[in-house]
């Protein structure tokens, strides 16, 4: 394909040519060789012309060499050399090409970031042929919007992201193409008075070329603008005055006005990132201190800037689970999400928008693939409950939050406020854990929990169960660590899921694919869940493991019935540290049992093995021993387990009695025990891989 063909076909003629989108030139950037190869072939199948590189730096070089060589850039988000977003900004800034982001992570805040940085689209891996077939629309759209008349804003809410370039002021505003399209094509660093840059150059042949002058907000121009604003004070900055101060020929008040609007949004975004925790704390009506830990929710910061007020900040917060284990944002869903962002973010102070966005978000959830729990947002409380919620905990913001959903079968009962409070308590106390739960499971920090509670439905995103399972485990841990008061909340919290999890069991099956935790389901031990979960709680299995619950790996563990009571007490009353203490106890119990059976040989041998990894199996069986108290069983299990690596991470503080006991009984093992005890504080025991039986093979001789 000759250069002329390409240029003629793609540049200037807009959409006219028949050949387009065939032959569209795409630059694909991804550090993962597999994805890159698959992407390349998929693009070839779409009959695009593909160039690939696995380094963002190289991509930039190629783009800079000849900007006109490419029509579209697809780039991965996580890359080692340059962050995908940075690349996005640079490409938008310098080359004004449409950029599509690609990621394996469907994290909402990442998507948000992509949109705000000007991405045309945000695709999730695995990329599908159907999605790629349509990416040419972004090229057309951008071209159209470039040539668009100021008075004819089309549906450019998406393209204008990209067209505005990466001045850091990109918003999702779709009302701004009137003014400030950065025409980066030829004049990178123009000076003032960029008039008619774009319209003149961009589409000579395009019949719809508009005649109005366009302003390019170059760096210098922007500086002037900023200094003018500073002079006036942001609050008092009015376009007229700014215009006067800037004293730039040809700049109209409208130009300044729209630029100012964008600038304000940008500032809010920047500032609210810094103050996110405080505002979040305020929003949720919970203790501030705990929210200092909400670092993990940093994604929230992205959401908040778009709300003009603190109130909406929280409303904005609510619908967007930053941790977004929402399953895959496929293109349709992604589009919905874009719709959300554009509607939800553009107009701060408009709860309606948020609810709209939320609606679409709910819809998005509904169209999530391969999950029974299509109504992820079932968890979203009804407005009624939300009001209640507000009254209970949060300031009134959520009121505007007229939900959204059509939760199917979701019923928030009057228990909502209570549970909300509990959740709030839980969240406050759970700091990290709550934070982690929130993004993953909660929509808006509280609702999902309750959704799970109240409805016991699959109000969880497909991936939520898995995350939830894991995180409720950790939350339990962390709860205990953080606040005593959280215990109650934590209890509630974790109890809630227990009710919900069975229903999410089938959920697990479908999305998480029970097989992934299916190993658990194959073994009968699942019933051991102290939460009294059914066997469907394959999820909880991994969860519970830290507490020495079932971890049915490969059916290795014969008797995996953990002492539910024991573990439960452990769970609710002890720290992670205490858990390791507990492990200690079990270990020492084993020792005692072993000694009782005069089985010191193998045990010491296993101890000698250096790597002491306490497997869940081990602990579970130990629990069994502790409960059952049958020395013979203990012996067999001890022997069996001793063959495996046993690594204790005992907490020194709490093993006094056991230490003494152990030491007294295993004088020769003192050193080993000491060294093992010194190792790794407060860590839950490592679980040796069942597959990698390195130690086992090493210690095989000990049997």
């Amino acid at each position, binding site marked *: 394909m000759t250069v002329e063909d390409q240029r003629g076909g793609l540049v200037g003629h807009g959409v006219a040519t028949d050949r387009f989108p065939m032959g569209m030139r795409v630059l694909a950037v991804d*550090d*993962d*060789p*597999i*994805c890159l*190869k*698959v*992407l390349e*072939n*998929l693009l070839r*199948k779409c009959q695009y012309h593909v160039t690939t590189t696995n380094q963002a730096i190289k991509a930039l070089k190629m783009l800079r060499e000849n900007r006109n060589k490419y029509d579209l850039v697809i780039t991965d988000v*996580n890359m080692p050399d340059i962050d995908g977003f940075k690349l996005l900004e640079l490409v938008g800034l310098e080359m004004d090409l449409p950029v599509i982001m690609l*990621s*394996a*992570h469907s994290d909402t805040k990442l998507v948000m970031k992509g949109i705000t940085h000007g991405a045309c689209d945000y695709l999730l*891996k*695995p*990329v*599908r042929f159907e999605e790629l077939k349509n990416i040419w629309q972004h090229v057309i759209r951008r071209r159209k919007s470039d040539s668009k008349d100021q008075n004819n804003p089309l549906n450019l809410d998406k393209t204008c992201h990209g067209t505005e370039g990466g001045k850091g002021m990109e918003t999702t505003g779709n009302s701004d193409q009137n003014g400030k399209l950065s025409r980066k094509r030829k004049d990178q660093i123009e000076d003032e008075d960029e008039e008619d840059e774009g319209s003149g150059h961009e589409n000579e042949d395009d019949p719809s070329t508009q005649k109005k002058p366009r302003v390019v907000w170059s760096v210098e121009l922007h500086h002037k603008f900023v200094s003018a604003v500073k002079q006036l004070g942001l609050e008092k900055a009015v376009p007229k005055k700014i215009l006067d101060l800037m004293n730039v020929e040809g700049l109209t008040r409208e130009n300044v006005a729209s630029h100012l609007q964008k600038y304000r949004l940008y500032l809010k975004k920047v500032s609210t990132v810094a103050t996110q925790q405080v505002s979040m704390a305020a929003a949720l009506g919970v203790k501030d201190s705990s929210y200092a830990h909400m670092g*993990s929710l940093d994604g929230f910061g992205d959401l908040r800037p778009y709300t003009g007020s603190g109130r909406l900040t929280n409303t904005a917060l609510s619908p967007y689970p930053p*941790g977004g*284990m929402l399953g895959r944002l496929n293109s349709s869903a992604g589009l919905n999400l874009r719709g959300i962002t554009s509607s939800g973010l553009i107009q701060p102070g408009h709860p309606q928008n948020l609810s709209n966005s939320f609606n679409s978000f709910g819809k998005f959830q509904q169209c999530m693939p391969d999950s029974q729990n299509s109504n992820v947002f079932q968890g979203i409380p009804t407005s009624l409950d939300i009001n209640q919620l507000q009254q209970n905990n949060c300031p009134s913001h959520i009121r505007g939050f007229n939900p959204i959903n059509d939760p199917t079968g979701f019923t928030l009962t009057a228990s909502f406020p209570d549970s909300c409070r509990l959740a709030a308590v839980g969240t406050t106390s759970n700091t*990290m854990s709550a934070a*982690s739960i929130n993004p*993953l499971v909660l929509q808006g920090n509280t609702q999902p929990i309750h959704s799970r509670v109240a409805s016991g439905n699959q109000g969880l995103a497909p*991936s939520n169960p*898995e*995350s939830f399972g*894991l*995180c409720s*485990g*950790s939350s339990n*841990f962390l709860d205990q660590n953080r606040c005593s008061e959280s215990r109650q909340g934590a209890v509630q919290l974790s109890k809630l899921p227990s009710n919900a999890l069975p229903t999410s069991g089938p959920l697990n099956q479908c*999305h*998480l*694919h029970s*097989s*992934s935790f*299916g*190993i658990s389901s*194959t073994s009968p031990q699942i019933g051991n869940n102290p939460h009294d979960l059914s066997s469907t709680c394959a999820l909880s299995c*991994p*969860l519970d*493991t*830290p507490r020495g619950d079932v971890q049915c*790996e*490969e*059916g290795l563990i014969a008797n995996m019935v953990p002492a539910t009571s024991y573990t439960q007490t452990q769970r609710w009353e002890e720290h992670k540290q205490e858990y390791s203490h507990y492990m200690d106890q079990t270990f020492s119990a084993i020792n005692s049992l072993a000694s009782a059976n005069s089985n010191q040989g193998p045990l010491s041998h296993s101890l000698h093995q250096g790597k002491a990894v306490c497997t*869940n199996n081990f602990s579970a069986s130990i629990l069994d021993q502790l409960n059952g108290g049958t020395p013979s069983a203990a012996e067999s299990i001890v022997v069996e387990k001793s063959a495996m690596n046993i690594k204790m991470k005992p907490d020194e503080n709490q093993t006094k009695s056991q230490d003494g006991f152990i030491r007294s009984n295993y004088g020769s093992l003192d050193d080993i025990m000491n060294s093992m005890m010194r*190792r*790794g504080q407060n*860590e*839950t*025991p*490592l*679980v040796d*891989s*069942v*597959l*990698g039986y390195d130690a086992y093979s090493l210690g095989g001789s000990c049997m």
Partner: protein
Amino acid sequence: MTDMLPAAGSCRVGLMSQRRINLPQQTAREVTGYGDRRSPPPALLCRGSKTGLPVWMLGLGADRLRADMNRLLALLFHQGVLDEQFLQLQQLQDESSPNFVSEVVNIYFHESEKLLRNLRGLLMEREFSDYKKMGIHLNQFVGSSSSIGAKRVRNVCVAFRAASEQNNRAGCFRALELLEHEYCYLKNKLHELFQIEQQRVLAAGIRYPMQN
């Protein structure tokens, strides 16, 4: 799902065996099941010929092999080991890229084992705290697994990623084990698939003299 357990056990991820796709090693008898009918001399049944199949067997085995392959694929789909993305990969294979699937999958194996090594190395550290790094590895793993349609592996990775985001070390360990297990199983099965495919291609491609 119990059938996967023994298979996984045979794969020593810890040893990181780099299995490549080899020429078929099975005899014609095993492959085609036709061994009884004509009972060729034993010499012909072993890997005497270049293809590893007795020449006279070749044309007949192709259909049987295709059936075997489809059966295996169906099983894997049913188990959720693979999903439709794998089918897309297969569709991308054509004359211009005849070995596309196996190339991609080989790269995937290579990368995945690297990742698994890294992950295990990270988790085994005594003072492990770099969840972020683990998250990066996991993200790549999720991406590549989903790109080839390794659904179960991908799901475990997602869960693993969640655990690491919560700094849940125990959860990470569990997930890692699960991941290794699933990966092993996938690798075994894909190898099996490719072997059958190779044999099928060979069987279909070789013309043998129609003499008797």
